[in-house]
C-alpha cells in the first residue's frame, strides 16, 4: 500500500475545506489556512505528477478504496492524462486563491468563500481521478453544488437570475446523466471505466450484450459533458454565469471547471468507448465505418459541428460585447471550440499518429486557455477593483494609470490570439497541424476544420484588439485617471503572465507531457491492466 499519493490531492482539498469551515470566525486564520491548503494542494499534485512521471515512465497508478477490488469497489486512477489536467488546474487554482484573498471582501470570505472554493477543488480533483462512471457523477455534483453558490455569491439581481439558469440547467443535466449511467449499467453490467472499456470492446465475452444501446446512452452522456464544457448548442448559460460570479471564481469556472467537461469527453470517449465496434449504423448525411473505432468515428462529425458552432458563436458574441467580462465569457465559448476541434480530428483520424497529435493538441490548448483565460478574468477583476466598472464606455487609457495590469491583460490576450513566444502559439499551431495532417491523409471535412480554425483565429484577433483599443488605450477618463490598482491583485496577474511566457519558452516539456497524456488517453489496454490488474492478483493497488 504505497499508493496513497493518488488520493493525496483529494484529501488535502477536503481537509482544507473543512478546516476553513471550522475557523470561519477567525478571519485571518481562515485565510492563512486556506492559502496554506492551496499551497499544500499544489504540493500534493506535484507529488502525484512526479510519481506518474509523464515526462518519463508515464506510469498508471490505481488506488482501490478500502481495498475492494476493482470492478466492484471504487477505484481512483492517476495516469498521465489526469496528471496533466491536475497539474495545470492546481496552478490556476492557487493563483485564483491568492487573488481572492485580497479581492473578495472580508465579510464574504468569512461567510463561505474559502470552504466553497476548496469543496469545488475536491469535486474537480475527484472528477479527474475517478475510475468509476457513477463516481464521476458524484464528483460532478460536489463540484457543481459549490459552483452554484459561488455564482450567486453576491446575490444581487443579475446574480440570482444567472444562478437560477445555471442551477436548473445543471439539475436537468444531472438527471440525464443519471439516466445514461443507469442504462449503461443495465446494458453492460458494470460501472468501472476500465471494466466498461473491456466489455464494450468485446461484448461477446461478457454475456453478449447488445452494443447498439451503448451508443445511444453514450450520446446522452455526451450531451451532459458538452453542457459542462459549454459547447454550442449548450453554451447559453455561460455568459450570464461568468459575469455574475466573482472574478476569481469566473477564472476558475473558465480555466478549470470547464476543462472537467473536456477531460470527461476525452476519458470516456477515447479511453472507454473508443473500442466499441458498431456495425450497420447509418444516419442521414453521415457514414460510419464498421469495426474498430466505429463509435469514435460516429462522434467525430458531431464534435466537429459543435466545435465549429462554438468557435463562430463565441467569436461573434465576443465581438459584439460592451464589457470585459461578457467579452471574456463569449471568448471562452469560442476557445472551447478550439479545444474540441482537434479532438474531432482525432476521433475520425485513421492513423494512431494523427490521433495522438489531435488529443495532444486539445490538451495543450486546454492548458493554454486555462492559463490565459484565468489571467484575463483575474485582470478584469483587478480592473473592476481599481476603476469600479468594466464597461468599455467607462474605461480607456488604463495603460497610463495601471501599466503592469494592462501588460498582464495584453499578454493574456496575445496568448489566446497565438503570438509566437507564448504558449498559445503552440496550441494554435498544433490545432492547424492536426487539421493539416488530417487533410493530407484525405479525411473528409478536415479542410473545413482548417477554415473554421482560421475564421476563429481572425475573430479572436478582432475582439481582443477591440478590447485593447477601447479599454486600455486612448485618453483616460477621470474615473480611470484616479484608478489605483491594488498591488497584490496586479502581482498575481503579472505572475500568471510570466507563467504563460515561461510555458511558451519551455514548450518542449509541455509538449512531452501533453503527448504522454494523449497516449495515456488512447492506451486502453494499459488503463485496463492498471485498474483491473493484468492477472487475478489481490492486495492493494497495482502499478
Amino acid at each position, binding site marked *: 500500500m504505497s499508493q496513497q499519493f493518488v488520493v493525496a490531492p483529494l484529501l488535502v482539498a477536503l481537509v482544507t475545506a473543512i478546516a476553513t469551515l471550522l475557523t470561519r470566525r477567525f478571519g485571518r486564520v481562515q485565510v492563512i489556512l486556506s492559502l496554506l491548503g492551496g499551497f499544500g494542494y499544489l504540493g500534493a499534485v506535484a507529488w502525484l505528477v512526479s510519481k506518474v512521471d509523464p515526462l518519463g515512465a508515464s506510469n498508471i497508478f490505481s488506488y482501490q478504496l478500502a481495498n475492494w477490488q476493482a470492478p466492484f469497489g471504487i477505484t481512483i486512477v492517476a495516469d498521465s492524462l489526469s496528471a496533466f489536467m491536475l497539474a495545470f488546474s492546481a496552478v490556476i487554482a492557487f493563483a485564483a486563491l491568492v487573488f481572492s484573498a485580497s479581492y473578495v471582501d472580508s465579510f464574504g470570505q468569512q461567510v463561505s468563500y474559502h470552504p466553497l472554493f476548496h469543496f469545488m477543488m475536491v469535486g474537480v480533483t475527484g472528477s479527474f481521478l475517478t475510475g468509476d462512471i457513477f463516481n464521476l457523477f458524484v464528483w460532478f455534483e460536489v463540484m457543481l453544488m459549490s459552483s452554484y453558490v459561488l455564482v450567486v455569491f453576491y*446575490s444581487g439581481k443579475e446574480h*440570482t437570475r444567472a444562478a437560477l439558469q445555471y442551477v436548473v440547467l445543471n439539475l*436537468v443535466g444531472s438527471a440525464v446523466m*443519471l*439516466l445514461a449511467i*443507469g*442504462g449503461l449499467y443495465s446494458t453492460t453490467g458494470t460501472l468501472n471505466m476500465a471494466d466498461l472499456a473491456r466489455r464494450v470492446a468485446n461484448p461477446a465475452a461478457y454475456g453478449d450484450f447488445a452494443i447498439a444501446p451503448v451508443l445511444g446512452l453514450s450520446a446522452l452522456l455526451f450531451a451532459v459533458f458538452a453542457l459542462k464544457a459549454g459547447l454550442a448548442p449548450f453554451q447559453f448559460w455561460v455568459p450570464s454565469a461568468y459575469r455574475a460570479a466573482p472574478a476569481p471564481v469566473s477564472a476558475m469556472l473558465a480555466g478549470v471547471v470547464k476543462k472537467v467537461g473536456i477531460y470527461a469527453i476525452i476519458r470516456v470517449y477515447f479511453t472507454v468507448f473508443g473500442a466499441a465496434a458498431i456495425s450497420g449504423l447509418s444516419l442521414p448525411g453521415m457514414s460510419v465505418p464498421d469495426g474498430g473505432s466505429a463509435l469514435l468515428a460516429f462522434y467525430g462529425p458531431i464534435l466537429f459541428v459543435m466545435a465549429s458552432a462554438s468557435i463562430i458563436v463565441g467569436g461573434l458574441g465576443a465581438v459584439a460585447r460592451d464589457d470585459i467580462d461578457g467579452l471574456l465569457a463569449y471568448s471562452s465559448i469560442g476557445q472551447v471550440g478550439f479545444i474540441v476541434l482537434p479532438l474531432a480530428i482525432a476521433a475520425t483520424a485513421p492513423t494512431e499518429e494523427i490521433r495522438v497529435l489531435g488529443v495532444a493538441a486539445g490538451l495543450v490548448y486546454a492548458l493554454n486557455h486555462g492559463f490565459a483565460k484565468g489571467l484575463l478574468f483575474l485582470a478584469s477583476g483587478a480592473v473592476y477593483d481599481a476603476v469600479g466598472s468594466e464597461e468599455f464606455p467607462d474605461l480607456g487609457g488604463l495603460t497610463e494609470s495601471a501599466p503592469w495590469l494592462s501588460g498582464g491583460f495584453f499578454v493574456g490576450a496575445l496568448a489566446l490570439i497565438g503570438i509566437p513566444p507564448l504558449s498559445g502559439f503552440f496550441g494554435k499551431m498544433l490545432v492547424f497541424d492536426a487539421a493539416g495532417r488530417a487533410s493530407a491523409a484525405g479525411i473528409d471535412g478536415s479542410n473545413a476544420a482548417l477554415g473554421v480554425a482560421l475564421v476563429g483565429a481572425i475573430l479572436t484577433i478582432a475582439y481582443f484588439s477591440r478590447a485593447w483599443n477601447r479599454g486600455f488605450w486612448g485618453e483616460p477618463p477621470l474615473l480611470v485617471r484616479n484608478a489605483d490598482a491594488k498591488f497584490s491583485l496586479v502581482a498575481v496577474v503579472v505572475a500568471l503572465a510570466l507563467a504563460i511566457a515561461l510555458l511558451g519558452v519551455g514548450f518542449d516539456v509541455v509538449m512531452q507531457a501533453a503527448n504522454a497524456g494523449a497516449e495515456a488517453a488512447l492506451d486502453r489496454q494499459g488503463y485496463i491492466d492498471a485498474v483491473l490488474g493484468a492477472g487475478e492478483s489481490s492486495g492493494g493497488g497495482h502499478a
Partner: protein
Amino acid sequence: MTQFVLAGVLGLLFALGTFLVLRRDIVRVVWGVTIISQSANVYLVTMGGLSGGVPILSHGGHGGGHAVTDPLVQALVLTAIVIGFGTTAFALVLTYRVYEEHGTIDLLELGEKA
C-alpha cells in the same frame, strides 16, 4: 406486468416533470426538476431487474435458487437521492432569493427586466 406499469408510470412522471419545467412560475420549474430527478431515480432502481429474489433474505439458500435482484442500483439510488435533497433545497432557497431581489417569480417578467 409490473414492468409495463412501471414503464408507463415512469413515462408519465417524465412528461409531468418536463411540463412543469416549461412553466413560467419558478416554483413549478423547481418542482419539475425535482420530479425529473426523482423519476431518474425510479428508473435507476428498475435497472437492477425487478423479478429477482430478495438479496438479503435469500442469502444462504432462502432464495429458492433463483437469481437475486441487483442491490447495487439501490445503493446508487441512495446516493442520488441524497444529492437530490441537497440540490432541491438549494433551488428552493434560490427561488426565495430571486423573489426577494426581483419581487416576482414569473420567469417572463424576470426576462423582460433584463
